[in-house]
Protein backbone atom coordinates (compact mmCIF):
# COMPACT_ATOMS: atom_id res chain seq x y z
CA UNK A 1 0.00 0.00 0.00
CA UNK A 2 1.42 3.32 -0.88
CA UNK A 3 1.10 6.14 1.58
CA UNK A 4 0.17 9.40 0.03
CA UNK A 5 0.99 12.59 1.86
CA UNK A 6 -2.63 13.21 2.73
CA UNK A 7 -2.91 9.73 4.11
CA UNK A 8 0.20 10.16 6.22
CA UNK A 9 -0.91 13.50 7.60
CA UNK A 10 -4.44 12.37 8.25
CA UNK A 11 -3.18 9.23 9.93
CA UNK A 12 -1.03 11.37 12.20
CA UNK A 13 -3.90 13.71 12.95
CA UNK A 14 -6.35 10.90 13.59
CA UNK A 15 -3.86 9.17 15.87
CA UNK A 16 -3.36 12.36 17.86
CA UNK A 17 -7.08 12.98 17.96
CA UNK A 18 -7.77 9.50 19.26
CA UNK A 19 -5.04 9.76 21.89
CA UNK A 20 -6.33 13.13 23.01
CA UNK A 21 -9.89 11.90 23.12
CA UNK A 22 -8.90 8.81 25.01
CA UNK A 23 -6.75 10.67 27.49
CA UNK A 24 -9.46 13.26 28.07
CA UNK A 25 -12.02 10.53 28.55
CA UNK A 26 -9.83 8.65 31.00
CA UNK A 27 -9.06 11.76 33.03
CA UNK A 28 -12.67 12.86 32.94
CA UNK A 29 -13.82 9.47 34.07
CA UNK A 30 -11.34 9.29 36.94
CA UNK A 31 -12.19 12.78 38.06
CA UNK A 32 -15.86 11.98 37.98
CA UNK A 33 -15.35 8.75 39.84
CA UNK A 34 -13.24 10.60 42.35
CA UNK A 35 -15.88 13.19 43.07
CA UNK A 36 -18.67 10.69 43.12
CA UNK A 37 -16.92 8.21 45.32
CA UNK A 38 -15.89 10.89 47.77
CA UNK A 39 -19.55 11.87 47.88
CA UNK A 40 -20.57 8.26 48.44
CA UNK A 41 -17.88 7.82 51.05
CA UNK A 42 -18.88 10.96 52.88
CA UNK A 43 -22.48 9.78 52.97
CA UNK A 44 -21.50 6.44 54.40
CA UNK A 45 -19.16 8.16 56.79
CA UNK A 46 -22.10 10.13 58.00
CA UNK A 47 -24.13 6.98 58.47
CA UNK A 48 -21.25 5.40 60.35
CA UNK A 49 -20.91 8.55 62.40
CA UNK A 50 -24.52 8.46 63.51
CA UNK A 51 -24.11 4.81 64.51
CA UNK A 52 -20.95 5.68 66.39
CA UNK A 53 -22.73 8.48 68.26
CA UNK A 54 -25.57 6.16 69.09
CA UNK A 55 -23.19 3.54 70.46
CA UNK A 56 -21.01 5.95 72.37
CA UNK A 57 -24.00 7.54 74.07
CA UNK A 58 -24.84 4.11 75.40
CA UNK A 59 -21.26 3.33 76.32
CA UNK A 60 -21.33 6.54 78.29
CA UNK A 61 -24.09 5.06 80.41
CA UNK A 62 -21.59 2.45 81.42
CA UNK A 63 -22.87 -0.34 79.25
CA UNK A 64 -20.40 -2.70 77.68
CA UNK A 65 -20.17 -2.73 73.92
CA UNK A 66 -21.21 -6.34 73.62
CA UNK A 67 -24.32 -5.70 75.69
CA UNK A 68 -25.75 -3.13 73.29
CA UNK A 69 -28.27 -5.48 71.71
CA UNK A 70 -30.35 -2.67 70.20
CA UNK A 71 -27.43 -1.77 67.95
CA UNK A 72 -28.11 -4.89 65.94
CA UNK A 73 -31.52 -3.48 65.00
CA UNK A 74 -30.07 -0.05 64.26
CA UNK A 75 -27.55 -1.36 61.78
CA UNK A 76 -30.06 -3.69 60.18
CA UNK A 77 -32.36 -0.72 59.70
CA UNK A 78 -29.57 1.25 58.05
CA UNK A 79 -28.84 -1.61 55.71
CA UNK A 80 -32.49 -1.94 54.74
CA UNK A 81 -32.55 1.77 53.96
CA UNK A 82 -29.76 1.43 51.42
CA UNK A 83 -29.35 -1.72 49.41
CA UNK A 84 -25.91 -0.59 48.26
CA UNK A 85 -24.52 -1.31 51.69
CA UNK A 86 -22.84 -4.69 51.74
CA UNK A 87 -22.79 -4.80 55.49
CA UNK A 88 -22.24 -2.96 58.71
CA UNK A 89 -20.11 -4.56 61.34
CA UNK A 90 -19.20 -3.65 64.87
CA UNK A 91 -16.20 -5.32 66.39
CA UNK A 92 -14.34 -4.95 69.62
CA UNK A 93 -10.75 -3.94 70.14
CA UNK A 94 -9.63 -7.54 69.80
CA UNK A 95 -11.27 -7.88 66.42
CA UNK A 96 -14.20 -10.06 67.35
CA UNK A 97 -17.33 -9.09 65.46
CA UNK A 98 -20.05 -8.32 68.00
CA UNK A 99 -22.79 -7.10 65.70
CA UNK A 100 -23.18 -7.66 62.03
CA UNK A 101 -25.95 -7.06 59.54
CA UNK A 102 -25.08 -10.53 58.38
CA UNK A 103 -25.92 -12.33 61.56
CA UNK A 104 -23.91 -15.34 60.50
CA UNK A 105 -20.81 -13.20 60.72
CA UNK A 106 -21.15 -12.50 64.42
CA UNK A 107 -18.34 -13.91 66.50
CA UNK A 108 -15.78 -14.24 63.74
CA UNK A 109 -12.56 -12.25 63.70
CA UNK A 110 -12.02 -9.30 61.39
CA UNK A 111 -8.96 -9.06 59.12
CA UNK A 112 -5.87 -7.77 60.89
CA UNK A 113 -5.75 -4.59 58.87
CA UNK A 114 -9.12 -3.54 60.24
CA UNK A 115 -7.48 -3.34 63.63
CA UNK A 116 -4.57 -1.16 62.56
CA UNK A 117 -6.51 2.11 62.58
CA UNK A 118 -7.58 1.42 66.16
CA UNK A 119 -3.98 1.48 67.32
CA UNK A 120 -3.64 5.07 66.18
CA UNK A 121 -3.63 7.47 69.09
CA UNK A 122 -6.11 9.79 67.41
CA UNK A 123 -9.36 7.98 66.81
CA UNK A 124 -9.69 9.24 63.28
CA UNK A 125 -12.11 7.99 60.68
CA UNK A 126 -10.51 5.42 58.43
CA UNK A 127 -11.16 4.03 55.04
CA UNK A 128 -9.87 0.86 53.47
CA UNK A 129 -10.06 -0.31 49.94
CA UNK A 130 -10.17 -3.73 48.42
CA UNK A 131 -10.49 -4.90 44.87
CA UNK A 132 -14.21 -5.11 44.97
CA UNK A 133 -15.24 -3.29 48.09
CA UNK A 134 -14.57 -0.18 50.06
CA UNK A 135 -14.97 0.35 53.71
CA UNK A 136 -15.42 3.35 55.94
CA UNK A 137 -15.04 3.03 59.65
CA UNK A 138 -14.84 4.91 62.87
CA UNK A 139 -13.28 3.80 66.13
CA UNK A 140 -15.64 3.58 69.08
CA UNK A 141 -14.34 5.37 72.11
CA UNK A 142 -15.86 4.92 75.52
CA UNK A 143 -16.09 7.57 78.18
CA UNK A 144 -12.75 6.49 79.57
CA UNK A 145 -11.20 7.63 76.33
CA UNK A 146 -10.41 4.05 75.50
CA UNK A 147 -10.94 2.58 72.05
CA UNK A 148 -13.50 -0.15 72.57
CA UNK A 149 -13.75 -1.24 68.98
CA UNK A 150 -14.99 0.11 65.72
CA UNK A 151 -17.95 0.32 63.45
CA UNK A 152 -17.35 -0.22 59.75
CA UNK A 153 -19.58 -0.04 56.75
CA UNK A 154 -18.74 -1.92 53.59
CA UNK A 155 -19.94 -1.01 50.14
CA UNK A 156 -18.98 -2.31 46.71
CA UNK A 157 -16.33 -0.37 44.81
CA UNK A 158 -17.89 -1.16 41.50
CA UNK A 159 -21.29 0.16 42.31
CA UNK A 160 -20.43 3.54 40.87
CA UNK A 161 -19.82 1.90 37.53
CA UNK A 162 -22.96 -0.15 37.88
CA UNK A 163 -25.05 2.78 38.91
CA UNK A 164 -23.76 4.99 36.15
CA UNK A 165 -23.19 2.35 33.49
CA UNK A 166 -25.85 3.70 31.14
CA UNK A 167 -24.67 7.27 31.61
CA UNK A 168 -21.07 6.33 30.98
CA UNK A 169 -21.82 4.27 27.93
CA UNK A 170 -23.95 7.09 26.54
CA UNK A 171 -21.07 9.52 26.99
CA UNK A 172 -18.66 6.97 25.54
CA UNK A 173 -20.82 6.51 22.45
CA UNK A 174 -21.00 10.26 21.97
CA UNK A 175 -17.27 10.51 22.37
CA UNK A 176 -16.69 7.78 19.81
CA UNK A 177 -19.12 9.42 17.43
CA UNK A 178 -17.37 12.77 17.78
CA UNK A 179 -13.98 11.17 17.32
CA UNK A 180 -15.22 9.27 14.28
CA UNK A 181 -16.76 12.35 12.74
CA UNK A 182 -13.68 14.45 13.26
CA UNK A 183 -11.45 11.67 11.99
CA UNK A 184 -13.37 11.76 8.75
CA UNK A 185 -13.08 15.54 8.68
CA UNK A 186 -9.35 15.21 9.28
CA UNK A 187 -9.10 12.79 6.39
CA UNK A 188 -11.07 14.95 4.00
CA UNK A 189 -9.39 18.16 5.08
CA UNK A 190 -5.89 16.81 4.72
CA UNK A 191 -6.74 15.61 1.22
CA UNK A 192 -7.92 19.12 0.45
CA UNK A 193 -4.86 20.78 1.98
CA UNK A 194 -2.33 18.42 0.51
CA UNK A 195 -4.18 17.79 -2.72
CA UNK A 196 -2.72 20.97 -4.18
CA UNK A 197 0.76 19.74 -3.40
CA UNK A 198 0.05 16.46 -5.17
CA UNK A 199 -1.55 18.21 -8.12
CA UNK A 200 1.38 20.55 -8.46
CA UNK A 201 3.84 17.72 -8.40
CA UNK A 202 1.87 15.69 -10.90
CA UNK A 203 1.59 18.72 -13.15
CA UNK A 204 5.34 19.13 -13.04
CA UNK A 205 5.83 15.46 -13.79
CA UNK A 206 3.49 15.75 -16.74
CA UNK A 207 5.29 18.83 -17.99
CA UNK A 208 8.55 16.97 -17.81
CA UNK A 209 7.12 14.04 -19.73
CA UNK A 210 5.48 16.26 -22.30
CA UNK A 211 8.49 18.45 -22.85
CA UNK A 212 10.78 15.47 -23.20
CA UNK A 213 8.46 13.59 -25.49
CA UNK A 214 7.02 16.35 -27.62
CA UNK A 215 9.17 19.36 -27.04
CA UNK A 216 7.97 22.76 -25.90
CA UNK A 217 8.69 24.57 -22.71
CA UNK A 218 7.67 24.22 -19.14
CA UNK A 219 5.77 27.24 -18.06
CA UNK A 220 6.55 28.26 -14.53
CA UNK A 221 4.08 30.04 -12.37
CA UNK A 222 4.79 33.71 -13.15
CA UNK A 223 4.30 34.71 -9.51
CA UNK A 224 7.10 32.39 -8.54
CA UNK A 225 10.00 34.41 -9.84
CA UNK A 226 13.30 32.74 -9.02
CA UNK A 227 11.47 30.10 -7.04
CA UNK A 228 11.42 26.40 -7.44
CA UNK A 229 9.15 26.33 -10.44
CA UNK A 230 11.26 28.63 -12.55
CA UNK A 231 14.33 26.65 -11.59
CA UNK A 232 12.40 23.54 -12.47
CA UNK A 233 11.49 25.00 -15.82
CA UNK A 234 15.16 25.63 -16.46
CA UNK A 235 15.86 22.09 -15.38
CA UNK A 236 13.28 20.72 -17.76
CA UNK A 237 14.62 22.80 -20.57
CA UNK A 238 18.19 21.81 -19.78
CA UNK A 239 17.27 18.16 -19.54
CA UNK A 240 15.50 18.28 -22.85
CA UNK A 241 18.45 20.10 -24.33
CA UNK A 242 20.84 17.52 -22.93
CA UNK A 243 18.77 14.62 -24.13
CA UNK A 244 18.42 16.14 -27.55
CA UNK A 245 22.06 17.05 -27.69
CA UNK A 246 23.08 13.55 -26.78
CA UNK A 247 20.66 12.16 -29.34
CA UNK A 248 22.09 14.47 -31.98
CA UNK A 249 25.60 13.57 -30.96
CA UNK A 250 24.71 9.94 -31.18
CA UNK A 251 23.34 10.46 -34.67
CA UNK A 252 26.47 12.34 -35.56
CA UNK A 253 28.65 9.53 -34.32
CA UNK A 254 26.51 7.04 -36.21
CA UNK A 255 26.85 9.08 -39.33
CA UNK A 256 30.62 9.23 -38.91
CA UNK A 257 30.74 5.55 -38.11
CA UNK A 258 28.75 4.71 -41.21
CA UNK A 259 30.78 7.10 -43.31
CA UNK A 260 33.62 4.77 -43.33
Amino acid at each position, binding site marked *: MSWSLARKVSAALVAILLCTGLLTAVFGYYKFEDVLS*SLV*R*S*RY*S*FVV*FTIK*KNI*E*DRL*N*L*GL*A*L*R*QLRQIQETIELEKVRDDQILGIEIYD*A*RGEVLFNTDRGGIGVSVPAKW*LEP*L*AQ*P*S*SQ*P*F*SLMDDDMQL*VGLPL*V*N*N*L*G*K*VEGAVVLRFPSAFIDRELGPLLSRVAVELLAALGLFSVIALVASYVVLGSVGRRLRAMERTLATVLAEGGDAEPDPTDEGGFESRYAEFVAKTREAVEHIAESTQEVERLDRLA
Partner: protein
Amino acid sequence: MIRRDFLAGLGGLGAVAAWPSGLAAQPAKPPRPYRIYMALFRGWEEAAQGFKDYFTNQGIPVELIIRDCAQDKSKLPGFVAEAKEMKVDLVFTWGTTVTQEMLGTFDKVDPAKHITDIPAVFAIVSQPVGAKVVPNLLSSGRNITGTSYLVPMETQVNLLRSYLPVKRLGMVYNPLERNSLVAIDELRELGTAQDFEVIVAPVDVVEGKPVAASIPGKVASLKESGVGFLYIPPDTFLNVNRDILTQAALDQQLPTFAAAENPVVTSKALIGGVYRYYTVGQLTAYKAEQILVHNKPPQDIAIDAPKRLSIILNMPVVRALGVYPPMNLLSLAEVIDGPGGKP
Protein backbone atom coordinates in the same frame (compact mmCIF):
# COMPACT_ATOMS: atom_id res chain seq x y z
CA MET B 1 -2.59 7.75 44.72
CA ILE B 2 -1.99 10.35 47.32
CA ARG B 3 -5.20 11.81 48.49
CA ARG B 4 -5.21 14.55 50.98
CA ASP B 5 -8.93 15.03 51.26
CA PHE B 6 -10.11 12.05 53.12
CA LEU B 7 -13.47 11.47 54.69
CA ALA B 8 -14.46 15.06 54.69
CA GLY B 9 -18.07 14.42 55.45
CA LEU B 10 -18.19 13.91 59.16
CA GLY B 11 -20.32 16.23 61.22
CA GLY B 12 -18.28 18.32 63.54
CA LEU B 13 -20.32 17.09 66.45
CA GLY B 14 -19.15 15.37 69.59
CA ALA B 15 -15.50 15.91 70.33
CA VAL B 16 -13.75 12.62 70.89
CA ALA B 17 -10.74 12.65 73.12
CA ALA B 18 -7.55 10.98 72.17
CA TRP B 19 -6.29 8.19 74.33
CA PRO B 20 -3.43 5.82 73.78
CA SER B 21 -5.32 2.62 73.49
CA GLY B 22 -4.20 -0.34 75.45
CA LEU B 23 -4.90 -2.98 72.91
CA ALA B 24 -1.42 -3.27 71.57
CA ALA B 25 -0.33 -6.11 73.77
CA GLN B 26 -2.65 -8.87 74.75
CA PRO B 27 -0.55 -11.43 76.56
CA ALA B 28 -1.74 -14.95 77.03
CA LYS B 29 -4.32 -15.39 79.74
CA PRO B 30 -2.82 -15.95 83.15
CA PRO B 31 -3.16 -19.34 84.69
CA ARG B 32 -5.19 -17.92 87.55
CA PRO B 33 -7.43 -14.87 87.89
CA TYR B 34 -5.96 -11.65 89.21
CA ARG B 35 -6.76 -11.22 92.87
CA ILE B 36 -7.96 -7.77 93.82
CA TYR B 37 -8.60 -6.64 97.37
CA MET B 38 -11.46 -4.13 97.42
CA ALA B 39 -11.61 -1.96 100.53
CA LEU B 40 -14.93 -0.08 100.64
CA PHE B 41 -16.18 2.64 102.94
CA ARG B 42 -19.95 2.50 102.86
CA GLY B 43 -20.89 -0.69 101.22
CA TRP B 44 -21.23 -1.87 97.64
CA GLU B 45 -22.35 0.99 95.41
CA GLU B 46 -22.08 2.22 91.81
CA ALA B 47 -18.33 2.83 91.69
CA ALA B 48 -17.60 -0.65 93.00
CA GLN B 49 -20.09 -2.08 90.50
CA GLY B 50 -18.45 -0.19 87.64
CA PHE B 51 -15.07 -1.48 88.77
CA LYS B 52 -16.29 -5.05 88.80
CA ASP B 53 -18.26 -4.80 85.53
CA TYR B 54 -15.26 -3.51 83.67
CA PHE B 55 -13.38 -6.74 84.21
CA THR B 56 -16.41 -8.78 83.30
CA ASN B 57 -16.94 -6.78 80.10
CA GLN B 58 -13.30 -6.97 79.11
CA GLY B 59 -13.15 -10.68 79.81
CA ILE B 60 -10.35 -10.27 82.33
CA PRO B 61 -10.61 -12.94 84.98
CA VAL B 62 -10.45 -11.46 88.48
CA GLU B 63 -11.09 -12.70 91.94
CA LEU B 64 -12.45 -9.88 94.07
CA ILE B 65 -11.92 -9.93 97.82
CA ILE B 66 -14.51 -7.46 99.05
CA ARG B 67 -14.21 -5.81 102.46
CA ASP B 68 -16.48 -3.06 103.73
CA CYS B 69 -15.46 -1.04 106.78
CA ALA B 70 -18.99 0.44 107.04
CA GLN B 71 -17.60 3.91 107.78
CA ASP B 72 -15.56 2.54 110.65
CA LYS B 73 -11.98 3.71 110.36
CA SER B 74 -10.72 1.32 113.03
CA LYS B 75 -11.22 -1.72 110.81
CA LEU B 76 -8.77 -0.46 108.22
CA PRO B 77 -5.42 -1.57 109.78
CA GLY B 78 -6.89 -5.08 109.79
CA PHE B 79 -7.61 -4.76 106.06
CA VAL B 80 -4.01 -3.73 105.43
CA ALA B 81 -2.70 -6.76 107.27
CA GLU B 82 -5.13 -9.09 105.51
CA ALA B 83 -4.27 -7.79 102.07
CA LYS B 84 -0.57 -8.23 102.77
CA GLU B 85 -1.09 -11.70 104.13
CA MET B 86 -3.20 -12.79 101.17
CA LYS B 87 -0.50 -11.50 98.81
CA VAL B 88 -3.17 -10.05 96.49
CA ASP B 89 -2.14 -8.62 93.12
CA LEU B 90 -3.79 -5.24 93.60
CA VAL B 91 -5.64 -3.20 96.19
CA PHE B 92 -8.65 -0.99 95.44
CA THR B 93 -9.51 1.72 97.96
CA TRP B 94 -12.79 3.62 98.01
CA GLY B 95 -12.97 7.18 99.35
CA THR B 96 -10.54 9.58 100.95
CA THR B 97 -10.55 7.98 104.40
CA VAL B 98 -9.90 4.42 103.30
CA THR B 99 -7.24 5.59 100.89
CA GLN B 100 -5.41 7.72 103.42
CA GLU B 101 -5.54 5.04 106.10
CA MET B 102 -4.50 2.12 103.93
CA LEU B 103 -2.07 3.76 101.53
CA GLY B 104 -0.80 6.62 103.67
CA THR B 105 -0.13 10.13 102.47
CA PHE B 106 2.78 10.61 100.15
CA ASP B 107 4.83 12.40 102.82
CA LYS B 108 4.08 9.80 105.51
CA VAL B 109 4.25 6.25 104.26
CA ASP B 110 4.95 3.59 106.83
CA PRO B 111 5.60 0.14 105.33
CA ALA B 112 4.41 -1.36 108.60
CA LYS B 113 1.06 0.40 108.60
CA HIS B 114 0.44 0.94 104.90
CA ILE B 115 0.36 -1.06 101.75
CA THR B 116 3.52 -0.33 99.81
CA ASP B 117 4.65 -3.37 97.84
CA ILE B 118 1.28 -4.24 96.41
CA PRO B 119 0.12 -1.81 93.69
CA ALA B 120 -3.05 0.04 94.53
CA VAL B 121 -5.72 2.10 92.81
CA PHE B 122 -7.98 4.55 94.57
CA ALA B 123 -11.35 5.97 93.61
CA ILE B 124 -13.79 8.60 94.91
CA VAL B 125 -11.10 10.70 96.53
CA SER B 126 -12.40 14.21 96.03
CA GLN B 127 -9.07 16.03 96.44
CA PRO B 128 -6.23 13.55 95.76
CA VAL B 129 -3.67 16.36 96.03
CA GLY B 130 -5.36 18.24 98.84
CA ALA B 131 -5.66 15.05 100.85
CA LYS B 132 -1.94 14.42 100.19
CA VAL B 133 -2.60 11.04 98.62
CA VAL B 134 -0.47 12.15 95.66
CA PRO B 135 1.84 15.13 95.22
CA ASN B 136 0.36 15.94 91.83
CA LEU B 137 -2.05 14.40 89.35
CA LEU B 138 0.56 13.41 86.78
CA SER B 139 2.24 10.82 88.94
CA SER B 140 1.86 9.52 92.44
CA GLY B 141 5.57 8.93 92.64
CA ARG B 142 4.85 5.62 94.30
CA ASN B 143 3.17 2.29 93.75
CA ILE B 144 -0.35 3.70 93.43
CA THR B 145 -2.58 5.49 90.99
CA GLY B 146 -6.25 6.32 90.87
CA THR B 147 -9.06 8.47 89.58
CA SER B 148 -10.59 11.77 90.47
CA TYR B 149 -14.33 12.18 90.28
CA LEU B 150 -15.09 15.86 90.67
CA VAL B 151 -15.88 17.77 87.52
CA PRO B 152 -13.53 20.75 87.19
CA MET B 153 -15.35 23.95 87.96
CA GLU B 154 -14.55 25.39 84.56
CA THR B 155 -16.22 22.46 82.81
CA GLN B 156 -19.27 22.88 84.99
CA VAL B 157 -19.50 26.58 84.29
CA ASN B 158 -19.05 26.09 80.58
CA LEU B 159 -21.85 23.57 80.58
CA LEU B 160 -24.09 25.84 82.62
CA ARG B 161 -23.46 28.80 80.39
CA SER B 162 -23.90 26.79 77.23
CA TYR B 163 -27.41 26.14 78.47
CA LEU B 164 -28.07 29.78 79.23
CA PRO B 165 -25.34 32.42 78.91
CA VAL B 166 -26.21 34.20 82.13
CA LYS B 167 -24.36 37.21 83.44
CA ARG B 168 -25.23 36.57 87.07
CA LEU B 169 -24.74 33.31 88.79
CA GLY B 170 -26.23 32.74 92.22
CA MET B 171 -25.30 30.29 94.93
CA VAL B 172 -26.91 29.41 98.24
CA TYR B 173 -24.45 27.65 100.53
CA ASN B 174 -23.72 26.41 103.96
CA PRO B 175 -21.00 28.69 105.41
CA LEU B 176 -19.87 25.85 107.64
CA GLU B 177 -18.82 23.59 104.77
CA ARG B 178 -15.40 24.02 103.33
CA ASN B 179 -16.39 22.53 99.95
CA SER B 180 -18.81 25.38 99.36
CA LEU B 181 -16.24 28.03 100.26
CA VAL B 182 -13.79 26.49 97.81
CA ALA B 183 -16.52 26.47 95.15
CA ILE B 184 -17.22 30.18 95.69
CA ASP B 185 -13.55 31.06 95.22
CA GLU B 186 -13.31 29.01 92.07
CA LEU B 187 -16.51 30.49 90.67
CA ARG B 188 -15.38 34.04 91.37
CA GLU B 189 -12.07 33.40 89.65
CA LEU B 190 -13.81 32.07 86.57
CA GLY B 191 -16.25 34.95 86.73
CA THR B 192 -13.43 37.43 86.35
CA ALA B 193 -12.02 35.52 83.40
CA GLN B 194 -15.30 34.86 81.64
CA ASP B 195 -17.06 38.04 82.63
CA PHE B 196 -19.91 36.96 84.84
CA GLU B 197 -20.85 37.89 88.36
CA VAL B 198 -21.22 35.54 91.28
CA ILE B 199 -23.74 36.45 93.96
CA VAL B 200 -23.80 34.24 97.05
CA ALA B 201 -26.22 33.85 99.90
CA PRO B 202 -25.18 31.85 103.00
CA VAL B 203 -27.99 30.03 104.77
CA ASP B 204 -28.71 31.24 108.28
CA VAL B 205 -26.75 29.54 111.01
CA VAL B 206 -28.38 29.24 114.40
CA GLU B 207 -26.45 27.74 117.30
CA GLY B 208 -23.80 26.49 114.96
CA LYS B 209 -26.28 24.70 112.76
CA PRO B 210 -27.53 25.72 109.31
CA VAL B 211 -31.25 26.33 109.13
CA ALA B 212 -33.01 24.64 106.20
CA ALA B 213 -36.05 26.86 106.52
CA SER B 214 -33.98 29.88 105.55
CA ILE B 215 -33.26 28.43 102.09
CA PRO B 216 -36.35 29.70 100.17
CA GLY B 217 -35.78 33.24 101.40
CA LYS B 218 -32.18 33.14 100.25
CA VAL B 219 -33.24 31.89 96.81
CA ALA B 220 -35.80 34.66 96.56
CA SER B 221 -33.20 37.27 97.46
CA LEU B 222 -30.87 35.95 94.77
CA LYS B 223 -33.68 36.08 92.24
CA GLU B 224 -34.33 39.66 93.21
CA SER B 225 -30.72 40.64 92.70
CA GLY B 226 -31.01 39.51 89.08
CA VAL B 227 -29.45 36.08 89.22
CA GLY B 228 -30.13 34.02 86.09
CA PHE B 229 -28.94 30.60 87.19
CA LEU B 230 -28.56 28.96 90.58
CA TYR B 231 -25.47 26.84 91.17
CA ILE B 232 -25.78 24.02 93.71
CA PRO B 233 -22.37 23.06 95.10
CA PRO B 234 -21.48 19.54 96.27
CA ASP B 235 -22.55 20.43 99.80
CA THR B 236 -23.79 17.81 102.23
CA PHE B 237 -26.32 20.10 103.90
CA LEU B 238 -27.77 21.18 100.58
CA ASN B 239 -27.81 17.63 99.37
CA VAL B 240 -29.92 16.65 102.34
CA ASN B 241 -32.23 19.62 101.77
CA ARG B 242 -32.23 19.43 97.97
CA ASP B 243 -35.99 19.23 97.67
CA ILE B 244 -36.45 22.49 99.57
CA LEU B 245 -33.75 24.21 97.57
CA THR B 246 -34.79 23.06 94.09
CA GLN B 247 -38.50 23.61 94.78
CA ALA B 248 -37.74 27.13 95.98
CA ALA B 249 -35.78 27.78 92.79
CA LEU B 250 -38.59 26.37 90.69
CA ASP B 251 -41.05 28.62 92.48
CA GLN B 252 -38.84 31.56 91.62
CA GLN B 253 -38.60 30.33 87.99
CA LEU B 254 -34.83 30.07 88.53
CA PRO B 255 -32.90 27.39 86.59
CA THR B 256 -30.61 25.28 88.75
CA PHE B 257 -27.34 23.56 88.00
CA ALA B 258 -26.15 20.82 90.31
CA ALA B 259 -22.60 19.61 90.76
CA ALA B 260 -23.90 16.23 91.91
CA GLU B 261 -26.35 13.69 90.57
CA ASN B 262 -28.89 13.66 93.35
CA PRO B 263 -30.46 17.10 93.00
CA VAL B 264 -31.24 16.35 89.35
CA VAL B 265 -32.01 12.66 89.45
CA THR B 266 -34.05 12.53 92.59
CA SER B 267 -35.13 16.12 93.00
CA LYS B 268 -35.98 19.15 90.87
CA ALA B 269 -32.68 20.64 89.77
CA LEU B 270 -32.73 21.50 86.09
CA ILE B 271 -29.39 20.18 84.93
CA GLY B 272 -26.35 18.47 86.33
CA GLY B 273 -22.88 17.85 85.03
CA VAL B 274 -21.26 14.96 86.82
CA TYR B 275 -19.02 11.98 86.47
CA ARG B 276 -21.13 9.01 87.37
CA TYR B 277 -19.68 6.83 90.09
CA TYR B 278 -20.19 3.83 87.85
CA THR B 279 -18.01 5.40 85.16
CA VAL B 280 -15.40 6.40 87.68
CA GLY B 281 -15.33 2.78 88.89
CA GLN B 282 -14.81 1.60 85.31
CA LEU B 283 -12.01 4.08 84.75
CA THR B 284 -10.35 2.88 87.96
CA ALA B 285 -10.61 -0.68 86.68
CA TYR B 286 -9.07 0.43 83.40
CA LYS B 287 -6.09 1.73 85.33
CA ALA B 288 -5.94 -1.53 87.26
CA GLU B 289 -5.88 -3.34 83.91
CA GLN B 290 -2.90 -1.23 82.84
CA ILE B 291 -1.06 -2.35 85.94
CA LEU B 292 -2.07 -5.99 86.03
CA VAL B 293 -2.33 -6.97 82.39
CA HIS B 294 0.06 -4.56 80.75
CA ASN B 295 2.56 -4.36 83.61
CA LYS B 296 2.65 -0.60 83.54
CA PRO B 297 4.17 0.88 86.73
CA PRO B 298 1.45 2.75 88.66
CA GLN B 299 3.61 5.85 89.05
CA ASP B 300 3.56 6.14 85.24
CA ILE B 301 -0.21 6.34 85.14
CA ALA B 302 -1.68 9.79 85.62
CA ILE B 303 -4.58 10.39 87.98
CA ASP B 304 -7.50 11.72 85.99
CA ALA B 305 -11.24 11.75 85.57
CA PRO B 306 -13.40 10.16 82.86
CA LYS B 307 -13.18 11.85 79.49
CA ARG B 308 -16.83 12.39 79.01
CA LEU B 309 -19.08 14.26 81.32
CA SER B 310 -22.52 12.91 82.07
CA ILE B 311 -24.99 15.67 81.44
CA ILE B 312 -28.28 14.99 83.16
CA LEU B 313 -31.36 16.94 82.21
CA ASN B 314 -34.53 16.97 84.28
CA MET B 315 -37.22 17.30 81.62
CA PRO B 316 -40.21 18.03 83.91
CA VAL B 317 -38.26 20.95 85.30
CA VAL B 318 -37.26 22.05 81.81
CA ARG B 319 -40.91 22.11 80.82
CA ALA B 320 -42.00 23.80 84.01
CA LEU B 321 -39.45 26.57 83.54
CA GLY B 322 -39.94 26.83 79.81
CA VAL B 323 -36.21 27.37 79.46
CA TYR B 324 -35.22 24.87 76.82
CA PRO B 325 -31.78 23.35 76.29
CA PRO B 326 -29.87 24.03 73.07
CA MET B 327 -30.10 21.24 70.51
CA ASN B 328 -26.42 20.32 70.75
CA LEU B 329 -26.62 20.00 74.51
CA LEU B 330 -29.80 18.00 74.27
CA SER B 331 -28.19 15.53 71.92
CA LEU B 332 -25.40 14.89 74.43
CA ALA B 333 -27.57 14.75 77.51
CA GLU B 334 -29.11 11.94 79.46
CA VAL B 335 -32.68 12.81 80.11
CA ILE B 336 -34.70 12.26 83.27
CA ASP B 337 -38.34 12.28 82.37
CA GLY B 338 -41.38 11.25 84.33
CA PRO B 339 -41.48 9.30 87.56
CA GLY B 340 -39.23 6.52 86.23
CA GLY B 341 -36.33 8.88 86.19
CA LYS B 342 -34.06 7.02 83.79
CA PRO B 343 -34.09 7.71 80.05
